[in-house]
């Protein structure tokens, strides 16, 4: 009895003899040895060089035409417009020549430099509730509606709420462009496609107009942002569905850029631009000289890997060759060590 009891007790106290508790789980123990690492480096190097070449070649085949139209220099066509005093409704035009076909689809971007769309106070200055079409936020209620982040563009002097409120919406880019091809001295307008320039989810789900028909009634009792010339419901006179908060230009602007020099998509030219002379008519409204900014337009075509960007291809090439070089270096080191076995 006694010994039985003792045995039982032992069994009770005895730790479990499992692989886990005894730290004996079967394990794969990889070692970074020369036999594995050198072939791996060669493989990675070759693969990277392959990708790099592909990217580089693709990028080389893409064209970008970028033009500055700020008008800082006196020779620049938009110099007259850049003066802030007589800026109202100023128009200027930019001429350029294409010697060969710009294959379509061509994307037409406008670009700003030294423009900090990524400033925190600027970025948060909006009211998502307004932008999702909630009419409760179209009124002014002292400290809650519209969102206080919209300051100082929450309401005007008459305490009328600004819709859409906030700095981000207020400062929407408002230069407009028309592109003409000069055919035998005759200006022929190039059709610009403004559909699908912003994210599909933005104009279908994220931003909504209030469900009021006609749309302008929803904006009764509100004022347009201070710097806007037109209210939100009249942003696109040609397409009634492209107004309000789902106006694509507005949505493009509302997606804040990551860096201070940025481009934003303006229009698409589906068929491409044939060789010839072009004239770009700009209605110059947006002031940038005050903060040393530049305004640009850019035409670019894209491939499967996006726009022209040689960085990625070069980086792949560099890293790929680095891998190859390292594998050679390692090979030499291993060889040297193996040939002198007495080395400790």
């Amino acid at each position: 009895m006694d010994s039985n009891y003792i045995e039982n007790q032992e069994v009770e106290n005895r730790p479990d003899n499992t692989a886990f508790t005894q730290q004996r789980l079967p394990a794969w123990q990889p070692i970074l040895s020369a036999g594995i690492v050198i072939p791996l480096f060669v493989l990675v190097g070759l693969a990277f060089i392959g990708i790099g070449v592909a990217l580089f070649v693709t990028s080389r085949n893409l064209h970008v035409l970028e033009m500055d139209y700020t008008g800082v220099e006196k020779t620049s066509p938009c110099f007259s417009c850049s003066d802030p005093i007589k800026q109202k409704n100023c128009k200027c035009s930019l001429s350029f020549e294409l010697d060969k076909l710009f294959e379509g689809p061509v994307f037409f971007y406008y670009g700003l430099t030294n423009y900090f769309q990524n400033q925190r106070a600027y970025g948060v200055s909006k009211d998502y509730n307004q932008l999702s079409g909630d009419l409760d936020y179209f009124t002014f209620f002292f400290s809650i509606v519209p969102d206080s982040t919209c300051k100082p563009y929450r309401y005007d002097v008459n305490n009328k709420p600004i819709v859409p409120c906030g700095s981000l919406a207020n400062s929407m880019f408002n230069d407009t462009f028309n592109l003409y091809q000069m055919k035998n001295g005759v200006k022929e307008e190039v059709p610009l496609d403004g559909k699908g320039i912003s994210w599909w989810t933005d104009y279908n789900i994220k931003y909504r107009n209030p469900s009021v028909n006609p749309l302008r009634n929803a904006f009764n009792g509100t004022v347009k942002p201070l710097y806007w010339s037109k209210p939100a419901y009249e942003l696109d006179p040609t397409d009634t569905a492209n107004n309000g908060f789902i106006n694509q230009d507005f949505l493009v602007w509302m997606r804040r850029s990551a860096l201070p020099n940025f481009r934003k998509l303006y229009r698409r030219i589906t068929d491409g631009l044939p060789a010839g002379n072009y004239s770009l008519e700009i209605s110059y409204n947006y002031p940038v000289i005050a903060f040393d900014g530049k305004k640009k337009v850019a035409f670019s075509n894209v491939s499967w890997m996006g726009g022209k960007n040689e960085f990625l291809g070069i980086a792949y090439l560099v890293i790929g060759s680095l891998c190859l070089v390292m594998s050679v270096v390692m090979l030499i080191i291993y060889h040297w060590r193996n040939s002198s076995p007495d080395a400790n």
Partner: protein
Amino acid sequence: LYRRTQKMFCVGEESWVDSRTVYIGHKEPPPGAEAYIPQRYPDNRIVSSKYTFWNFIPKNLFEQFRRIANFYFLVIFLVQLIIDTPTSPVTSGLPLFFVITVTAIKQGYEDWLRHKADCSINECPVDVVQQGKVVRTQSHKLRVGDVVMVREDETFPCDLILLSSSRHDGTCYVTTTSLDGESSHKTYYAVPDTMAFTTEQEVDSLHATIECEQPQPDLYKFVGRINIYKDKEEPVARPLGAENLLLRGATLKNTQHIYAVAIYTGMETKMALNYQSKSQKRSAVEKSMNAFLIVYLCILISKAVINTVLKYAWQWSPDRDEPWYNHRTEHERQRHVVCLFIHRFLAFMVLFNYIIPVSMYVTVEMQKFLGSYFITWDEDMFDEELGEGAQVNTSDLNEELGQVEYVFTDKTGTLTENNMEFIECYRKERSAQLKEHEDLFFRALCLCHTVQVKEEETVDGIKRGIHQGRPTSFYISSSPDEVALVEGMKKLGYTYLRLRDNHMEILNKDDEIERFELLHVLNFDSVRRRMSVIVRSSSGECLLFCKGADSSIFPRVVSGKVEQVKARVEQNAVEGLRTLCVAYKSLTEADYQEACFHLTEAKLALQDREQRLAQAYDIIERDWLQEKAADTIESLHKAGMKVWVLTGDKMETAAATCYASKLFRRTLYLWVCYSANTRPHNHIYTLLHLVLHRCSLSVDCLDFGLIIDGATLSAVLKPNPESAGHGNYREIFLEICRNCSAVLCCRMAPLQKAQIVKLIKASKEHPITLAIGDGANDVSMIQEAHVGIGVMGKEGRQAARNSDYAIPKFKHLKKILLVHGHYYYIRIAELVQYFFYKNVCFIFPQFLYQFFCGFSQQPLYDTAYLTLYNISFTSLPILLYSLVEQHVSVETLKREPSLYRDIAKNSLLRWPVFLYWTCLGVFDAVIFFFGAYFLFDNTTFTSNGQMFGNWTFGTLVFTVLVFTVTLKLALDTHHWTWINHFVIWGSLLFYVIFSLLWGGIIWYNFCLLQMYYVFMQMLSSGPAWLSIILLITVSLLPDVIKKVLCRAICPTRLSAHR
């Protein structure tokens, strides 16, 4: 506080700090005897719980926020609440809330258990004698002075003074298993004057007061006095000692019932005082962790300062400060300059605060807590005999086990088995006197002990006794020496039968029963190193027998062939045998009365009473080395640890053990500093210098061993004002010790052991020390050392209870240090470095981003990412790594103890390594940020020409970050079990799934819309994929190259064994 009290107590022995007077049965003393001073004592309620229902939340929060890390996050959280900061308070509030809640739940549950335990203890029934009747009441209602009746197998409800027992000799048997783990029955005595009160009525008629010391935690010390008042007589005063004091928690055995009076109740009982928390030990890793944390705090502050200053510089031009598109509000413009500055600074602090890893402390704590289970689970450290495995009393020191440089080990019971066997006895006598003295000698051995006889309680026992024709008995004693002696005597024909009515009965050779009246027992203690008994033989002769270590016996012997015995003793000691000496003195009646008087007066100054002993004998026992002790010591040596043996034994025995255990090899050159008390101080000095000189001369320093004894050591350590010019012995001694591969300190008092440990701890290099021992005398050393290990020995469980880790045998030290210690160190080092690394990777891109967003405190990552990065995306892989990583196999670690040297001196957490990790983090962060920067530079990377915004930029960086950081850990993992695969790939998958859900669903709060579809849009673009792959590769490349090249150019021992 507990430690200090104990220390104070050890130094100033027998100091009556203060005393309390207890009135038995709450009866006032007769008028005129003494003024009745009513004193207030706590009731008998035991409160081990920390919190009550009402104060739990505030008190627990207070306790938690006393930790620096929690407090830091609280401050950050409050700053976020108060001022307008870039990130929402949720980002730091949620992890903080998580950490605090988890800890609070754990602590609350533990406290609830304690409450339940307290409740059941406080409400258990107790029998109290009131007005001559036994009344049943609840334990917590007990007051000091109550007379309590305790029945067999009941536990004492508080500290009691035994008044009388159902046994007619006024003794009772008690086990103290729950107090100190000793399962033997101990005998406690009632004062002879109260012995006779055997019924409730009689007890109730007792009129007495007890004066005793104030409560103190030492279980084995008690000083008091009972004054018994009889009608119109002078009060009789009797001394009370530890043998009269029944401790709370002990259990009454073999006795029907006892009456006893409560003297310490509730939280003042010795048990309660002993459970007060010990001072916390902190590991070296924790210290370097805190140092790193301070560095990171400095980095954080300097980042915030740099950005604030640059912000002002950048905003110098008003167009930049306030461009037309981003006007400030009036309110902001009117802010005071200083206010604005502080505001901006704090905002940057908040933005970068994640660089201090929020979850590191929780992860480290979980790692330690869970990791310590592997020690308790280890089957190799399970001892069949004891039926127990290793115990972990504190998990805070797991990694310290991998850092040990000095091992201080006790000899008896630790290195050796503590299984005694009586080998021989030696008497130096002329043959004429032989017969007479032989008898006396054997009797001396039979009588001079505190062995108790476990009587036949069970039917089995009686049967066995009948079979053998003689009553069988088992000897039980706290010291195995005594059992061995008494059993040895039994073999020689002298059987100790029992102690009855204060008479010891011996069955001598001729089967006659001899009775000796036991007059006094002066128990063994480690200071005197001897015990004595005074007995009166049946013929009326008073005899004093004294037994103890030779060093304490010989100086007191006045006649007899001391020299010869001494020589013999030494000879035996060299053979590794343990020796004891016995001496006797016959006392005349006058002598006895005098001694008796002194003893009764105060049982204090006993030393003087044992002098002038007549004869010395020598008993020899063999001490067996524990199995594999030699192998263990050899491994420890190879692992670069210095092993010191600290023992109370004498030099020869100890040295023999050291040779046997291979601590001293035969080639070892030994320096012996011994018996300094015979030499003047400057002698030691020159001696030490000589040793040092020789040591330094032989640069090839073969192997030096040092033997030093307690007396010399105390001379060395004592600050000596006279020889101030000679410099400090301490330094020289330390210098010598550093040059010795093995040191043996013999003749050490327990406190000296702790002093040695302290000395080494405080030396220049601040080495990590480990103390291992099994007895109560090792407790001070175990508590002093960085790591204290208790061997679950035969001398009770005190060492094991007070230790940080308890192991069944000395040989298990090898596994716990070389395997567990090594693993835990590697694991926690990686854990700490990795945590800092991943947070640098995390926050440095955000710092860089400030340069491109006009220092506007724009966060790079989304709120959800900021919040969850540390608590979910990257937390599990590292926690798992730190639990199961094995960079080399268990077998290799055991086979090659020298691998332990690779991690010595905190080598994986030194500043260069830390710098490497930080630089790697910065490098990776730069790669992430600028990789994404150049990719985003003025171009699109979708095939439909659409542009991406800042959140895509941040998500791209974050995705690369999560993958790189996790894969970096994967690269460092050498031991891929299925759990590793599951957790590493699982957490990456979790990140992807989370991001898809986070961006794919419209969440209620519209502020979160900023991430809507961002992740999917990013994944739909080819260049994003390509650049993620590229950036991950580039980030990992330097580490891979470094690893491969290190293996090739300077292979460590570690890598050679993989």
